[in-house]
């Protein structure tokens, strides 16, 4: 094993938390049973890494096996790094009938045509998602495995999620994806976050949604919490209305975990008390950013507790309705 492979393995071992190590090595399945048993998982990690390195050398494992280990780890823990959502546009006639082997061949062929030294690994996960790991090299150097790009795509949906791609390689990746999936172009969905499951749920609308009804009383089958007859709520209807509107705008139950919403303003400054800034021709550029550990949960609470006025402003509700968290606001609208 050469130096760069060793370094890759060492880096990977530092990343994987000790609790998950045993399960991931089991899934990897490149070490024989005796080898796995010989690893003592109670030792400190650096000792374990040395031992593992020795075992890999013995078994003659190479870069492609190590990258497989990395991929298993990332598939188990996708919620790290920054994921960006993209949407494919204008399907051609045979786009819905693409299946896995065809996609694989096409993607690999396209990408290696565009850039000769590139390492691609494609894997299908149990929940029908295709995971692609790409390590980029250029015409003179071998692929650099320490900064790979991961792409997740669900076949037959027009959505792609990417992490770790630089602006240099983005157009190449886009082109390969577009050709392989038989669409005509790909655009940025303006949705990004640390949590892949959240982004996917938001774009594919897989969270619990609430639809507006004319009769918002709860179903009779639900057992209401026994209310103390001595306690009466005066403005209960208002509270219920607010909760209903909050859930309509943001959804019910557990919400996808978004970290930020960014609004880039390109509108003219409008405040009559400030004469120097009002009335200028150029737009007043500003950026409003909402950040939180779980943004949608905070916004829903703001609305249901009355801190934000109802009906919910379309600026906030379009985060869930349009599935994006980066907006550019001009004077004519979003």
């Amino acid at each position, binding site marked *: 094993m050469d130096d760069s492979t060793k370094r890759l393995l060492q880096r990977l071992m530092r990343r994987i938390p000790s609790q998950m190590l045993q399960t991931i090595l089991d899934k990897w399945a490149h070490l024989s049973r005796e080898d796995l048993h010989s690893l003592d998982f109670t030792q400190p990690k650096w000792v374990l890494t040395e031992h593992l390195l020795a075992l890999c050398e013995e078994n003659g494992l190479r870069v492609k096996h190590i990258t497989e280990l990395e991929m298993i780890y990332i598939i188990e823990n996708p919620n790290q790094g920054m994921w960006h959502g993209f949407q494919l546009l204008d399907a051609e006639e045979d786009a819905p009938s693409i299946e896995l082997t065809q996609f694989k061949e096409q993607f690999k062929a396209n990408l290696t045509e565009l850039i000769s030294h590139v390492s691609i690994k494609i894997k299908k996960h149990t929940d029908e998602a295709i995971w692609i790991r790409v390590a980029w090299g250029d015409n003179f150097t071998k692929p650099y495995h320490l900064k790979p790009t991961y792409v997740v795509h669900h076949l037959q949906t027009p959505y792609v999620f990417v992490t770790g791609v630089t602006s240099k390689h983005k157009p190449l990746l886009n082109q390969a994806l577009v050709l392989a999936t038989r669409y005509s172009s790909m655009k940025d969905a303006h949705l990004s976050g640390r949590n892949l499951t959240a982004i996917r749920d938001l774009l594919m609308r897989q969270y619990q949604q609430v639809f507006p009804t004319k009769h918002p009383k709860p179903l009779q089958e639900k057992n209401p919490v026994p209310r*103390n007859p*001595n*306690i*009466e*709520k*005066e*403005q209960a*209807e*208002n*509270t219920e209305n607010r909760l209903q509107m909050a859930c309509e705008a943001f959804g019910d139950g557990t919400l996808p975990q978004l970290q930020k919403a960014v609004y880039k303003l390109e509108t003219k400054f409008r405040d009559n008390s400030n004469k120097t800034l009002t009335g200028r021709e150029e737009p007043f550029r500003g950026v409003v950013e909402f950040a939180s550990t779980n943004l949608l949960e905070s916004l829903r609470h703001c609305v249901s*507790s*009355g*801190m934000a006025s109802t009906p919910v402003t379309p600026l906030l509700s379009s985060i869930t309705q349009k599935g994006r968290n980066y907006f550019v606001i001009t004077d004519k609208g979003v």
Partner: protein
Amino acid sequence: MSLLKPFSKLPGLNTANILLVENEEQFQQKLADTVVLQEKTVNVNVLARSLPLPMENEESRPRIDLVVFIIHLTSELSFQSAETSLKYLDPGYFQGKVCFLVTNARNVSVPPERLVSVRKLAASLHCPLLCAEDQTTEGVTTAAHRLLAILKVAAGLVPMATGLYLSTLTRCTVPSDIDQQNFE
């Protein structure tokens, strides 16, 4: 204007009613549950977010003996909402039937001017100002206990004591040098 009037309804036998007004609607529920638990003679808690109270419940609503404004010092909105709700109370309430309850008074991140303005408001209305701690059960129990004491007097259940008498003893005062307070 739909003012809340203190004496427009008949009192019930062995009942005392307390109205908890809080913008955030969080502490009031805990407080209401504890108050009802502590006192077994019937008392009805009415919870509201702000005054004026909805007209539909005018008939069925019992006579309110004590109005408590819960103000969270961590939020300016809480204070402003309490201030605007004050306008909907008949002046008859301010003779011992209104109380201010303040939370997070010890919190370092709260601007001290807010507590000063609440104190000034309570002092100008001759009402008591209580400080409560809403995060622990002991805090909630203590606050409920104190409120019950005031409620019993305001409802006339304590012989020889009226709300007006009690309020002259317990009302909030603001020392004249509070504006020049410094901690050197």
